[in-house]
């Protein structure tokens, strides 16, 4: 029996497919990859159960090959991995560990089984086995593993085997992340390694601190002297790069640090031949020490070197560095503008993009027109992707802070129109938003806006491009909303109803139809106004003429009408009640409103444009175009169509009569139709303003309404639903007049738009009374809902029209910046409140109060705030604290000595040395005391350090004008504990 088993195993061993066989087979692909792989997996499943360790490990190796390069699941083999890991042979163990680091993750169930194996290997005398275990721990470490293996790591942190110690140091980072309490035990030894003379150890430990400091820089300030020493002494570029990164992170927390380190950094920048180190110096200076003029100047010189280098990598990094520095030192960009602009046409899209960003950074009020024009021309020549990048950045730059840099809005609106016609343009959404936003915010631009909208609408070719549909929706909305500026509303109507609108998606089409409604109302209203004034002056003549026309017209249209009206009339009966109510409502609404705009608007067209003929034509045209849409399946389109058709039906009979009768019964009460028209017209002429982002917040929460605070469950629902920004100026709002009571949205809209009038005035009232309790930033909250009188638009004569060269433009920007001579004053742009402005201020890195840094602070600073997770025994803690207190007296003298030493500025910091000696001395004494003893010692140390800070704090004021030493900066640190 036993012989049988072993003979099968020997057969397996001898005839097992090796890894090489597997790879060769895969490459030959005789039976297709998937078939081959599934066959191989079948074999592996059998082999991996073998009792022969060699067969087993080879099978596992093959499996890891398939898993890592062909992405086959190997989680099923987890237990076998553990088996192979525990093999006594190094070759097998290595395969096992490799498989584990490849396939295990934090939730792998068998992780519980490997703790002991790892512990054994970490304590192994074979350094390569220790290395394997560390490698594995760096890849997979759970809180349990980290906790259980902390003592072993602690021992390894001071082992004499460099090869193992450097790995242990790197692994500590992962252990800290999973088990923050490990910091209390290991941190001191980690810090000791900073003094190591071995470059590998130093590289490893600095790397760890670099990562730690990126999470919470403030906690590591006390170690600044150590880092400073490394910065000055080290010759190793790898180490220097990491130390520079650490200083870049520490700098914002301690202003005095900068003074000390700027010089050494500049030295490195000047001296080094390694581009990577030089670039790191540049980056450190420009990101964290940008107030030091001389350092920044040097950095800019070096950036220039990068920029003119042939290596595209250096070019790219140079450009990136410039864009980092641009917000604070724009001169650096302007100095290099030729180069920057040259690379707008580089072959590398990444470089082009960076240079585009920089060009946009140079844009200012005075050169925005020229730069935009050149860029738009350039976009015509570039590939679609970059073209859209250009357009996007123009749109973004120009609209920043509510069109801050735009003076000539007419120009900007026509630029938007121009952009829409660029063949590759895919920025429809953004252009749509801006067109509508501009219409609502800038009163003066409306005539030009309408002209642009008309241009877009009447071009049938644009309807075929789906990317433009959103823009067309905006254009249609503009043409309806601001139709009073139109020279020829009939033309607009024709554009809105053209047959190719069938290409539009229903949502856009609904906007078209509604805009057509507005245009129609406008025409009818103007006609009534006009005919009233005419009849009063020439009562008889005209009416006679008109009535003749009426008769003629009626005869003509008779045939047309019957065709299209038959179905709609039939259907409208069903909807009658609803239509009726809507009319009533709109009348009511119209009546409620203050009528201020409709009547004052002066038509810019010649008077005789609204003849009876043209009006009837118009009505017919609408009916003809919209008739077929009554069968639309889209609710929005259908409803809009019904509205407009029912309205026509309502007024049609009377409009002919009224005009005939008008001459005869001039004294009689106003006709119903014209009354309706007037009221709707008034409703439409109500001005729409922008709605503040925070408008909803100002609506007081009704009593008894319970709002759920925690909206986490929503996240799962709307995970992939993005709220478009256009919601702020939703196209729904123009309709709200009719939709009250009809749809639930009506209410919402009302809530949103109303507060701009009432709530804000209430708010200002309240502000006046209780200004104390308001945030100061809110003071420009209501710039105004009523527009100040507009400035007369004058033509801007630009002397630089011909220049195509951006380089020149930016020069001009500098020159004109000093003497702004705008031919045209900037029109008023309505801003609502601070919610509109996207503040682009640099934020200080937030101090993340995570567990690791809490523990670190505790170790380094002796923080009083112990983290909640601290698992150490409270009695132990208090005793250790007492112990610390007892020690204060002894330590003080020592510390005095330290501080005295540190006042002498020396490159090699003596205090740190001293500190080390002291600590290591203590360490030796307590070593035998075991784990608990060590912890105690740790806490005692903590107490000591705490006392040192207290001590130093007292001392700080006396030495405020003494030459600053980095050590002296530790006193400020307790501030971060607040």
């Amino acid at each position, binding site marked *: 029996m036993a012989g049988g088993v*072993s*003979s099968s*195993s*020997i057969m397996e*061993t001898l005839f097992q497919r090796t*890894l*090489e066989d597997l*790879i060769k087979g895969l490459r030959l692909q005789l039976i297709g990859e998937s078939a081959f792989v599934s066959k191989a997996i079948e074999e592996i499943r059998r082999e991996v159960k073998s009792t*022969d360790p*060699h067969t087993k490990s080879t099978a596992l*190796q093959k499996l*890891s*090959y398939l898993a*890592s*390069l062909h*992405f086959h*699941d190997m989680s099923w083999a987890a237990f076998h991995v553990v088996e192979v890991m525990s093999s006594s*042979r*190094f*070759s097998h163990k*290595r*395969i096992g560990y*490799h498989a584990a680091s490849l396939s295990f*993750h*934090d939730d792998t169930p068998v992780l519980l089984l490997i703790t002991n194996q790892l512990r054994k290997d970490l304590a192994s005398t074979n350094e*390569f086995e220790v290395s394997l275990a*560390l*490698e594995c721990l*760096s*890849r997979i470490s759970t809180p349990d593993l980290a906790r259980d293996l902390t003592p072993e790591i602690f021992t390894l942190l001071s082992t004499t085997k460099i*090869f193992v110690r*450097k*790995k242990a140091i*790197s*692994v500590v*980072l992962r252990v800290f992340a999973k088990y923050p309490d490990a910091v209390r035990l290991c941190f001191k030894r980690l810090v000791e390694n900073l003094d190591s003379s071995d*470059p*590998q150890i130093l*590289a490893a430990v600095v*790397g*760890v601190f670099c990562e730690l400091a*990126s999470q919470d820089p403030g906690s590591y300030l006390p170690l600044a002297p150590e880092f400073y020493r490394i910065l000055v002494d080290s010759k190793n570029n*790898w180490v220097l*790069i990491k130390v520079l*990164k650490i200083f*870049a992170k520490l700098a914002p927390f301690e202003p005095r640090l900068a003074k000390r380190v700027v010089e050494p950094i500049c030295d490195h920048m000047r001296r080094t031949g390694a*581009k*990577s180190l030089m*670039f*790191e110096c540049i*980056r450190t200076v420009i990101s964290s020490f940008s107030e030091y003029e001389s350092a920044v100047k040097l950095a800019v010189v070096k950036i220039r070197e990068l920029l003119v280098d042939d290596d*595209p*990598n250096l070019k*790219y*990094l140079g450009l990136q560095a410039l864009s980092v520095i641009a917000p604070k030192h724009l001169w650096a960009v302007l100095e290099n503008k030729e180069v920057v602009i040259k690379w707008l046409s580089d*072959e*590398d*899209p*990444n*470089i082009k993009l960076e240079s585009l960003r920089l060009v946009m950074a140079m844009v200012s009020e005075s050169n925005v027109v020229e730069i935009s024009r050149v860029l738009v021309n350039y976009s015509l020549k570039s590939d679609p992707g970059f073209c859209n990048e250009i357009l996007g950045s123009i749109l973004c730059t120009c609209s920043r802070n509510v069109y801050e840099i735009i003076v000539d809005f007419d120009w900007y609106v026509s630029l938007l129109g121009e952009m829409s016609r660029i063949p590759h343009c895919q920025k429809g959404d953004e252009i749509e938003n801006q067109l509508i936003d501009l219409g609502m915010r800038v009163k003066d631009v409306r005539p030009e806006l309408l002209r642009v909208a008309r241009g877009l609408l009447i071009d049938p070719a644009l309807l075929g491009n789906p990317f433009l549909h959103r823009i067309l929706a905006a254009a249609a909305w503009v043409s309806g909303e601001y139709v009073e500026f139109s020279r020829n509303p009939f033309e607009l109507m024709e554009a809105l109803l053209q047959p190719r609108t069938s290409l539009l998606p229903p949502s856009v089409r609904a906007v078209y139809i509604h805009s057509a409604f507005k245009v129609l109302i406008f025409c009818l209203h103007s006609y009534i106004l006009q005919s009233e004034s005419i009849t009063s002056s020439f009562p008889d003549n005209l009416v006679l003429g008109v009535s003749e026309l009426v008769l003629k017209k009626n005869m003509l249209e008779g045939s047309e009408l019957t065709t299209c009206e038959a179905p709609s009339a039939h259907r409208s009966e069903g909807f009658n009640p609803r239509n009726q109510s809507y009319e009533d409502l709109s009348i009511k609404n119209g009546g409620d409103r203050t009528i201020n705009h409709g009547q004052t608007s002066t038509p810019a067209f010649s008077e005789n444009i609204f003849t009876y003929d043209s009006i009837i034509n118009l009505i017919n045209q609408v009916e003809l175009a919209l008739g077929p849409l009554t069968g639309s399946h889209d609710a929005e389109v259908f409803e809009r169509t019904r509205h407009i058709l029912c309205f026509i039906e309502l007024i049609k009979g009377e409009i002919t009569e009224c005009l005939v009768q008008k001459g005869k019964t001039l004294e009689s009460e106003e006709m119903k139709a014209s009354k309706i028209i007037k009221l709707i017209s008034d409703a439409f002429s109500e001005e729409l303003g922008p709605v503040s982002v925070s408008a909803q917040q100002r609506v007081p929460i009704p009593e008894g309404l319970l709002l759920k605070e925690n909206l986490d469950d929503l996240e799962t629902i709307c995970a992939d639903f993005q709220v478009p920004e256009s919601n702020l100026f939703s196209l729904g709002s123009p309709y709200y007049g009719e939709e009250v009571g009809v749809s639930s949205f009506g209410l919402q809209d009302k809530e949103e738009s109303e507060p701009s009038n009432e709530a804000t005035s209430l708010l200002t009232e309240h502000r006046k009374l209780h200004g104390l309790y308001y945030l100061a930033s809110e003071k420009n909250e209501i710039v105004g809902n009523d527009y100040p009188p507009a400035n007369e638009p004058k033509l801007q004569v630009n002397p630089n029209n011909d220049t195509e060269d951006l380089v020149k433009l930016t020069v001009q920007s500098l020159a004109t910046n000093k003497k702004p001579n705008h031919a045209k004053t900037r029109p008023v742009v309505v801003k609502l409140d601070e919610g509109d402005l996207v503040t682009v201020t640099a934020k200080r890195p937030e101090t993340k109060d995570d567990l690791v840094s809490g523990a670190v602070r505790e170790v380094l600073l002796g923080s009083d705030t112990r983290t909640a997770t601290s698992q150490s025994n409270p009695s132990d803690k208090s005793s250790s604290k007492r112990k610390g207190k007892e020690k204060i007296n002894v330590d003080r003298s020592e510390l005095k000595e330290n501080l005295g030493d540190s006042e002498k500025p020396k490159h090699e910091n003596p205090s740190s040395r001293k500190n080390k000696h002291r600590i290591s001395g203590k360490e030796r004494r307590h070593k035998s005391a075991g784990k608990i003893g060590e912890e105690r010692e740790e806490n005692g140390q903590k107490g000591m350090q705490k006392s040192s800070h207290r001590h130093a704090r007292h001392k700080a004021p006396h030495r405020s004008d003494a030459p600053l030493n980095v050590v002296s900066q530790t006193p400020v640190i307790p501030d971060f504990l607040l």
Partner: protein
Amino acid sequence: MIHFVLLISRQGKVRLTKWYSPYSQKERTKVIRELSGVILTRGPKLCNFVEWKGYKVVYKRYASLYFCMCIDQEDNELEILEIIHHYVEILDRYFGSVCELDLIFNFHKAYYILDELLIAGELQEPSKKTVARLISAQDSLVETAKEQRSTISNIIAQATK
């Protein structure tokens, strides 16, 4: 820190993957698909950096292989390029003018070498010589074990145990 290392051939075949941050199997395939789409299409004389989902990917092509490493925004790109070059040089020294086939048939060795060069997403050994020495030491450890195992007497001993 380095989040992952990828070796992709010009045809888009994956030759090595090493993940220093946790990625599920699904994410891994997605990352590889996306990145090879971005990187393999880039022309020869362009810069070696690609911005990708808030990270930076530094890549370099050696012969038919693309070596890619994904790093954080604030990491040093040039340093990573040097690490890549380092790795290639060590491979070259180990295999004797390395080619793609070497890595295909010795994929585990490529991993072992990488493990000596990087740990936990950080460079651990800047010296090429040291890495080469460490690898050969481990290899000899394995070799002696293999020799022992493959002697006839060993096989017989196993069969009759």
